[in-house]
């Protein structure tokens, strides 16, 4: 019964959402009052929540008569993985998406003044909940032959990060609907005051969750996949990066619009671009046009329907946009040294990077069509080549951009000189720190972070000197990206590795570590058995043991390697094992200097993002 009730609740939410749209359709044109009551919105959210809970109950009670539960769970899974298994496949993750979307709709309803915004939100909700109900029903029953015990959750997903990475990302993706709806609402209703600051706040919410979600994914891939990599330019990873880049541009554009009343068309278009790029990502992951470890297998028909939905949203929004009257109050953008212009540079480069990454991601698909079916791949060489120079310019302009003034006040040339002085000073001092390892990539990294830090330092100094408030959220966010760039640059330039066959009790050296393979032990856990291979590690000032694992999952008959990691801010020692051979084990030991800075930087950025919400709450 519970699955059927779950479906019923989902249908209820879909009905409420659709009735709202059709019921208010005419009010929409006549600009009358909308018919909406708080109770309806609460009921709406509650329905989605209860639907979600019904599916969770099916998972936790091992109801394998439900097809989706049977395909994604197993009776031997620990209960928290059964809970998370709900979002291990297409249908369930769509339900999670709908849950978060309805949550944001509720919060928006409680905090905003625009019923037009709610209208557009319900349009999106109806489209996607309709998609789920009619083509991707997670409650479908498997009668009459449920596989005993279930198939099993993919062992790759049986990890703590799986319980938080997808939900965090989905909170970010769904939150992107809000700027879109607000932008559309403003296009239709020119009386929507504060639309830009509303839009900015929601962009920040989305961006913060996306930053955290992407960072979690990277960290998870790093310790879970056992190869030591933290970014693979996988189509699904790119699908999360592209909306993130556009959201970053969107935040800056929205700030300009809310503070200075300019760039409003950009803000609207970027909101559209952000949500569309997240839908393209959704499509890529679920349609089967690209294959990846991340994709959900789907048939082309569902992919086609999804594509139609996305196309509909695009055409529909462009029509609304073209009929809107968006006039900026001030047309003067001031000098080249104005903050407006730096924002413009920033956004142009962010968009270029996003489009370039999108292009590289779908190029194999394009090539396949025009070459009559030939299969090629576009990988790291392209993406690295495109990202590094653009990121360099973004970082380079960031520093002075932070210092620049809005054109209502001129930015004095003196500021420019002092900035460059600090920049040169920082660059030189930092290069002294890394004198032993100077290389082109270290220098590039150095310049990038020095630019940003010089800007931040001088900005803070000027604000304090003039007794003005220091924008902490901006400071943390930009400081965060500097930390991340530092981590990326250092680990890419300085990482080292050794791959060999380790003999028992015979140590080998990696930089200043001496590593000895001691032996192995067999262990049994709830749904897997494993070989635990232990290593003794000696360093100049410490000695410790590490255990790397090879796990065997009987139900899905897969083998996973769990790397042994000794983490620290300064460097990670990363040991993964390959096959066991007669003399010992195939071992790969890597040193990853400062790799933790990457995720630390992301955390700082996320913190900065959320911090800005509190600032506005108090005012």
């Amino acid at each position, binding site marked *: 019964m519970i699955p059927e009730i779950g479906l019923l609740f989902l249908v209820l939410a879909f009905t409420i959402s659709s009735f709202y749209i059709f019921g208010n359709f005419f009010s929409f044109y006549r600009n009358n009052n909308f018919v909406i009551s708080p109770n309806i919105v609460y009921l709406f959210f509650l329905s989605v929540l209860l639907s979600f809970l019904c599916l969770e109950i099916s998972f936790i009670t091992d109801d394998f008569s439900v097809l989706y539960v049977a395909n994604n769970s197993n009776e031997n899974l620990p209960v928290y993985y059964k809970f998370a298994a709900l979002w291990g496949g297409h249908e369930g993750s769509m339900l999670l998406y709908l849950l978060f979307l309805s949550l944001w709709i509720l919060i928006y309803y409680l905090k905003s003044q625009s019923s037009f915004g709610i209208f557009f939100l319900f349009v999106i909700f109806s489209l996607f909940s309709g998609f789920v109900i009619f083509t991707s029903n997670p409650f479908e029953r498997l009668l009459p032959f449920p596989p005993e015990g279930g*198939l*099993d959750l993919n062992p790759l997903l049986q990890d703590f990060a799986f319980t938080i990475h997808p939900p965090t990302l989905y909170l970010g993706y769904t939150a992107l609907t809000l700027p879109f709806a607000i932008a559309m609402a403003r296009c239709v209703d020119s009386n929507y005051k504060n639309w830009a600051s509303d839009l900015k706040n929601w962009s920040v919410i989305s961006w913060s969750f996306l930053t955290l979600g992407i960072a979690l994914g990277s960290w998870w891939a790093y310790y879970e996949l056992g190869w030591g990599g933290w970014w693979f330019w996988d189509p699904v990873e790119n699908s999360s990066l592209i909306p993130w880049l556009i959201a970053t541009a969107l935040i800056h554009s929205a700030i300009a619009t809310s503070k200075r009343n300019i760039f409003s068309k950009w803000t609207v278009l970027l909101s559209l671009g952000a949500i*569309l790029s997240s839908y*393209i990502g959704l*499509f890529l992951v679920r*349609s*089967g*046009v690209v294959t990846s470890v991340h994709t959900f*297998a789907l*048939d*082309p028909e569902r*992919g*086609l329907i999804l*594509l139609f939905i*996305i*196309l509909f949203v*695009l055409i529909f929004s*462009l029509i609304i946009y073209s009929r809107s009257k968006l006039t900026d109050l001030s047309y003067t953008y001031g000098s080249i040294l104005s903050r407006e212009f730096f924002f413009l540079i920033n956004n142009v480069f962010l968009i270029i990077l996003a*489009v370039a990454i*999108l292009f590289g991601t*779908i190029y194999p*698909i*394009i090539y*396949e*069509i025009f070459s*009559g*079916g*030939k*299969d090629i791949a576009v990988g790291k060489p392209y993406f690295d080549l495109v990202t590094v120079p653009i990121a360099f310019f973004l970082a380079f302009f960031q520093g002075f951009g932070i210092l620049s003034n809005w054109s209502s006040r001129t930015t004095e040339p003196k500021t420019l000189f002092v900035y460059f002085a600090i920049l040169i000073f920082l660059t030189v001092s930092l290069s002294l720190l890394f004198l032993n390892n100077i290389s082109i990539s270290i220098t590039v990294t150095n310049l990038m972070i020095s630019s940003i830090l010089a800007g931040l330092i001088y900005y803070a100094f000027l604000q304090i000197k003039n007794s003005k408030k220091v924008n902490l959220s901006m400071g943390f966010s930009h400081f965060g990206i500097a930390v991340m760039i530092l981590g990326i640059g250092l680990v890419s330039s300085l990482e080292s590795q050794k791959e060999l066959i380790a003999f028992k009790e015979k140590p080998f050296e990696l930089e200043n570590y001496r590593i000895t393979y001691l032996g192995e032990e067999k262990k049994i856990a709830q749904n897997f058995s494993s070989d635990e291979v232990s290593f003794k590690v000696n360093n100049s000032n410490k000695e410790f043991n590490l255990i790397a694992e090879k796990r065997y999952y009987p*139900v*899905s*008959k*897969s*083998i996973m390697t769990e790397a042994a990691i000794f983490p620290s801010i300064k460097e990670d020692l990363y040991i993964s094992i390959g096959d066991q051979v007669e003399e010992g084990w195939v071992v790969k030991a890597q040193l990853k200097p400062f790799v933790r800075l990457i995720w630390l930087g992301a955390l700082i950025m996320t913190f900065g993002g959320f911090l800005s919400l509190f600032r506005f709450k108090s005012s």
Partner: protein
Amino acid sequence: MKVTRYIGYFSLLLTLFIFSVFFINLFEENEINFPEKNLPSGEIKTFDGNILDLDLLKKSEFSLLNVWATWCINCKLEHGFLMAKKTEGWDIVGLNYKDDLEQAFKWLDQYGNPYSVNLYDQDGTYGFNLGVSGAPETYLLREDKILQKHIGIMSEKVWKDKFIPLINN
């Protein structure tokens, strides 16, 4: 601004181009060209312990070669389809890939044997020459030529979309 307008049109064109690419790709999933090549020759063990020279294997006009293993969960999901095809009279050669022979025997006993011949590629050498990257994979053969290859679970749908058009040619 004129420049802005042109950029706007350019972006719109780009977006529509991307959508068309996706549309076409969804429809053309079936017509992926596979460069015809011959089944690699070689000698390989069979389940009854003999060594078989693949050139001597008598093949019907159309046959299938299915790469499977007991460690491959998706293989279980396509098994029903393979059994059905066997009943229809299709000749399916089984290539057991990087597996344990005893477990493979048990598997076939327990679930049924859809294969006319059972080949045992213990270390994956033959599979490598074939271009195998994992299991399950299914190859459509016309005598000695490989017409098409499917990576992943075989189903009626894949059969209809990918294999039937080539068989009917």
